[in-house]
């Protein structure tokens, strides 16, 4: 039995369902009350497990899922050295979203990361504190900003509605997913020239160990043929 993890709700779930139906795969519930388990119609060898897309990376790493579809942003954020234990089988053409830095539109003097670093330093001098950056993506943000020599910042955890963090006085800058830039505009925020942390989209990921052991199994080959090769 192949354990296949999919997003249980949201836009990504719908896009995944479209992706399947384009390939002649139909999802059916495994039982009346079991909303979080499903299977492909006529396929008994694949167990579909529906869970939060942000939980999929860790479950693939742990081996509770053999294969899964989720956003690359989540893989990068949840598992720092993911390439060691997870294989990206196919990049998909949906779920596009960029992880970007958002600053207030009226910060007209801030257009590059080097500006942000200088402003953070002025913050430290004037307000005796770090520049606060609200984000759900703490790990990616920390690594990106340090790699780009930004100093004097502090990451504030934000589990949602991050775009409101500046108006709310929780943070000075945000890092968030933006697919069209519309949310940024509505909240009077702008991004900066070199402020894209990650270009994200959905991908099919598989547990490396599992793949090594089972890549010649008939069932897995059949599933992958349907998912990957037919396009």
């Amino acid at each position, binding site marked *: 039995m192949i354990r296949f993890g999919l997003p249980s709700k949201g836009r990504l779930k719908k896009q995944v369902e479209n992706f399947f139906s384009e390939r002649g795969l139909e999802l059916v519930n495994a039982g009346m009350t079991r909303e979080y388990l499903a299977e492909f119609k006529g396929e008994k060898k694949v167990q579909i497990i529906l869970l939060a897309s942000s939980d999929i990376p860790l479950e693939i790493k742990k081996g509770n899922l053999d294969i899964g579809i989720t956003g690359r942003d989540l893989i990068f954020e949840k598992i720092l*050295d993911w390439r*060691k234990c997870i294989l990206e089988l196919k990049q998909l053409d949906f779920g596009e979203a960029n992880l970007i830095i958002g600053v*207030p539109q*009226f*910060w*007209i*003097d*801030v*257009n*590059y*990361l*080097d*500006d942000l*670093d*200088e*402003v953070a*330093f*002025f*913050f430290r001098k*004037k*307000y005796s504190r*770090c520049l606060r950056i609200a984000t759900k993506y703490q790990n990616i943000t*920390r*690594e990106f*900003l*340090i790699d780009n*020599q930004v*100093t*004097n*910042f*502090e*990451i504030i955890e934000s589990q949602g509605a991050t775009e409101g963090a*500046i*108006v709310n*006085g929780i943070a*000075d800058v945000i890092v968030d997913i933006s697919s069209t830039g519309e949310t940024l505009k509505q909240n*009077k925020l702008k991004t900066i*020239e*070199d402020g894209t942390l990650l270009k994200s989209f959905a991908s099919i990921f598989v547990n490396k160990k599992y793949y090594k052991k089972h890549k010649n199994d008939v069932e897995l080959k059949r599933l992958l043929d349907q998912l990957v090769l037919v396009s």
Partner: protein
Amino acid sequence: MLKSKKGIIKPTLDSDNLGLEIRRIQTIFTKAGLKEISVPSLLNSSDLVDFYGEDLKLRAYTTSDPVRGEQILRPDFTVPILLKHLRDNSLQAKYFYRGNVWRRQNFKSKIPNEQYQMGFELFDSKKAKSISSDVEAYLLINRILSKYKVNSVTGDVQVLTSAIDDLDISDYKKTSLKRHLWRPKRFMRLLDLYSKQKISGNNNHSFKSANLSLWKEKLLGIESFYGARTKTDIKERIEILEQELSQNLIARSEKNFLLKLMRFQSSLKEAPKSILSLSMVGGTFRKAIENFERRVELLSEHVDTKIVKFQVIYGLTTLEYYDGFVFGFQFDHGKYPPIAQGGRYDSLCSRLSKKGKSICAIGSMLRMDFLRKTLNYDKD
């Protein structure tokens, strides 16, 4: 077995050899008048992040605790000892310590995540004594390691910062340059940005690219402001940029001097004279070199400084918070990272101490896990 399957050295301390070695080092410390100090292994995260910045979380282990808040496993001894020393309101003191530190390492690193360190911190309220305690610190480590085949490298951050202080540029530029000495890429970007002759032409900074007066006009037209950063803050920064854009840029000769200085290396004995011959010598720089020369003279009374290496930028990227004399000891066979590293950190002290109290400090640590490896390496 010393090596686990993954090649990580286990930090258990039951090896007889190492136990003896720890006692021997302890005796050396005690005879030198050092007192043992202990600090907790769990430290408050916000205290540390405040002055290390978020970098710390890339290197240290954080733990979650709904009651006490985020705690960090001790990533080094220097900072907690300094904080304890300041809390106790003491000025002069000589401490030694031993215990584990925990640091995340990348998977290629030979440094264990949990490592046993011994070391010391020497505090003094008198700046005048700095040179003699620099020498004392170096000689202590030198005495401990004299039975091993080691070589040492020294550096002096002061040589570089004093050279920057002597440049004919504004304090704003000096501050940003000194602030980024530890980040070579950024430092070179700034050096280029502040120079009359620019090389790259694509600086990632609004400093040159923007039309500053246009911004000022634009700023006047904006009505809604929110968050902590005010309209005045922005106006002030634009004015600073405006001024800095047009004035006091670094001359080509000055820039070349800095670059030469950063590349400089020689034997410790030769270093003071050779550096002075690089020309472009101002008052602050000369003073720094005089101090350097006195330190070399003092050291030469005890060690052969011809075989001690000197690099101006030694340790700049790895030895955070050091701002004066720095040193490291490495095994001759070169298999491991430095067995001992240390240096002066006066500005960290002044940043953390109460106003009006100045404390100077130098310290060093020994990575005991590598000593263990060598004990057995020599035995084999």
